[in-house]
């Protein structure tokens, strides 16, 4: 497939992924996190997902947002907090009753937006990058070959493990197994044992791969060349630099604000910056 995300250099994708994770950590503003989630959604759309992929993402994030907001709204423990709805009055089942807190909803929304922006960016990178390109990208950023090869090979074989696990489930179903029909203990035992053939298959496959790469001369840590020339264009360098600058600036702003907030370092001339961080970040 050829989409803007597919065409993007994997190192640039990794930079974007890193930048988004930094933003998710550093920013608390609902508006900015919302903007981050929109960027994540745009990146996801840019990799032209299939209908199945889109459905998977929408379904999983809807569940996540609902679960996060609902649980935070009910069990928010910080103060101040304001109940906006009472589900159970005090001393009914619980001493405090069950209230929905406005601050809890906000907190749940902030956490959800963090996860959405990171999740969508991660999905976009995974859906648009072949394992081989990942390997080249990791090598280009000086990850040792042995480590990068292991990580990428593990990713490459994940769909095979998923297919094999489906086959095991099918075999169990065809032999008459239905979860919980023979009691909880039996079910737990059977569910655990269903992993055995997949794990044994993984070990067998790992041995075969090891044998294959060893007989093609692979020695961990030995010097090796590369067929692929890892060129990084000026435009891509510029983008990486800009992203790095932005993240650096964000980090410095946030750090200065925290020093001011905890009364460790204050410079009157930086008051506009403190105000900016309070309002937007």
């Amino acid at each position, binding site marked *: 497939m050829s989409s803007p995300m597919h065409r993007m250099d994997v190192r640039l994708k990794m930079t974007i992924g890193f930048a988004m994770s930094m933003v998710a950590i550093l920013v608390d503003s609902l508006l900015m996190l919302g903007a981050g989630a929109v960027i994540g959604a745009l990146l996801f759309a840019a990799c032209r997902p*299939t*209908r199945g992929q889109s459905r998977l993402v929408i379904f999983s994030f809807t569940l996540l947002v609902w679960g996060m907001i609902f649980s935070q709204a009910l069990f928010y423990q910080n103060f101040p907090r304001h109940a906006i709805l009472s589900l159970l009055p005090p001393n009914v089942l619980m001493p405090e009753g069950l209230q929905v807190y406005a601050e809890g909803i906000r907190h749940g929304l902030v956490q959800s937006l963090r996860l959405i922006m990171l999740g969508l960016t991660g999905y976009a990178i995974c859906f648009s990058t*072949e*394992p*081989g*390109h990942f390997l080249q990208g990791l090598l280009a950023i000086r990850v040792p070959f042995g480590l990068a*090869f292991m990580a990428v*090979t593990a990713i*490459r074989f994940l769909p*095979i493990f998923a297919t*094999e696990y489906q*086959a*095991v489930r*099918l*075999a*169990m*179903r*065809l*032999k*008459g*197994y*239905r979860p919980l*029909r*023979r009691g909880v203990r039996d079910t737990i035992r*059977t569910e655990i*044992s*269903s992993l*055995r*053939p*997949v794990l*044994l*298959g993984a070990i067998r*496959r790992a041995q*075969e*791969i090891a*044998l*294959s*790469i*060893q*007989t*093609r*001369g*692979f*020695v961990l840590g*030995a*010097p*090796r*060349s*590369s*067929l*692929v*020339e890892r060129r990084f264009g000026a435009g891509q360098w510029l983008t990486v630099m800009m992203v790095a600058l932005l993240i650096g600036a964000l980090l410095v702003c946030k750090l200065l604000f925290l020093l001011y907030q905890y009364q460790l370092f204050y410079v009157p001339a930086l008051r506009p910056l403190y105000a900016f961080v309070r309002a937007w970040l």
Partner: protein
Amino acid sequence: MIRVDKLHLQYVGAEAPTLTDISFTVARGELVVICGPTGCGKSTLLNCLNGTLHHESSARIQGTVELAGRAMESLSVPEVCRLAGAVFQNPGSQLTASTAELEVAFGMENQNLERATMRERIDTALAATGLSDCRHQRTETLSGGQQQRLVMACVLALQPRMLLLDEPISQLDPQGAGEILRLLDELKSQGGMTIVLVEHRLEDVLPIADRVLLMEEGRLVATMTREALLADLSPLRRLGLNLPHLPDLFERLGRVERPLTAEAAPMLRVQREVPAVVGERGAVLIEVREVTYGYSRRGAALFEGLSLSLRRGDRVALLGSNGAGKSTLLHLLAGALRPWKGSVERPDPAPGCGLVLQNPDLMLFCESVREEVAFAPHHAGVPAGKAGELVERTLARLGIAELGDRAPFALSRGQRLRTAVASVVSREPAFLLLDEPTTGQDREQIDRLMEGLEAAYDVVLFATHDVDTAARHANRILLLHQGRVLADGAPHEVLDNAELLARAAVRQTSLQQYARRLGVRAFTVEALQEVVRP
């Protein structure tokens, strides 16, 4: 080129040595086949030749292994690779890169070669294996035969002086296997490559072999030229190995000729026509009506309006190339997949049918063989006493009673297959579906398994690439190609039609080709032996 002297190998913790007193030599440009019953140590011997056991294993190794005059202990891993290229059974587990080009480059990158050299060698290796057009293709989209040829290209790019191959065609359909064997023949005859090949499909490999090493229980019991082996097939018979069909026929007839191909065989006089076995067809048990199904609803359907019926007494062989839809049809028949349109009507009540998957290892998840066989009766709610009887009866029927307390994953491949079959059979299904039950099995094991099942079930349907097994054990052949039934009839109707078989990438055995030349409809050695005059 290769010298092995008094080789002895014992794994740590093993009670007995895996290899005992093995000595042989292989000359430059020779193609030597190593064969023997499952578990006799063939692959271990090959792994001694490719250096992996010397360099990475804690096994105790005594004796000498020399490649091109150099002792294995004195060679580093990259040096062994430059001398001997290794190809294994499963191509899918040997490919690690995303495209064919990157895959071929992998070994050369390990040797720290210049980019220009790598490009040049990639061109040559892909051309030699007929994969030039697939250079930028993703490795997982290649067919099984193409993947195995790609593995060969990876090895050839390293310019080794010898090739060591461990059952490279066992998982391929006849077309894929033919591609690999043609390539090996070219490498030997044109490039003077030394080749050592572990394989039990002797019918396929003997035409290109110079010598055969026979192994039994870790020992080398015979080393003979191809001609010497063909002159006396008794060692192969004794070990229960797959015999080459035409030499087997001519030996049974007491003739001195040992042809390997139909064209090379002298014409024998036919005494009478083989009587066509047309059994009475029983009642319909399974009815497939106008079924439409595909892998993805966004793509084209694999089956469109497929209709067929399976009757009591049917022993059906489902033939077709990789990707023809054999496994999918079995899954539809078993109810594991639901058709998009149409219906599959099965007998009531449950359990109806039993399906043995292509990879029997994925059907084994219990701690012992007995537990495995007891799984289905337990989940069907069969009372403990009756279930116990059923389990013991099933273990005995499949010939694995003595393995009851062993862990399934510690068994040999043949034993694992029989355990998987037993775990399905113990559910007492009305009919049985088997997906490639012959892969990696000796003739004797296949015959024993199939004969036992044929006697016990109303309908047995098995998918296979093995035309010989189809001829021996089926009374009906379904020929599948790209989701369409090309032919459905008695073996003498379908297997006699070489053109139709070729369309489905299925190849007649040399015996079937010869019978066709004689104008007889005989598909097994026994059948042809009865109608020709010695």
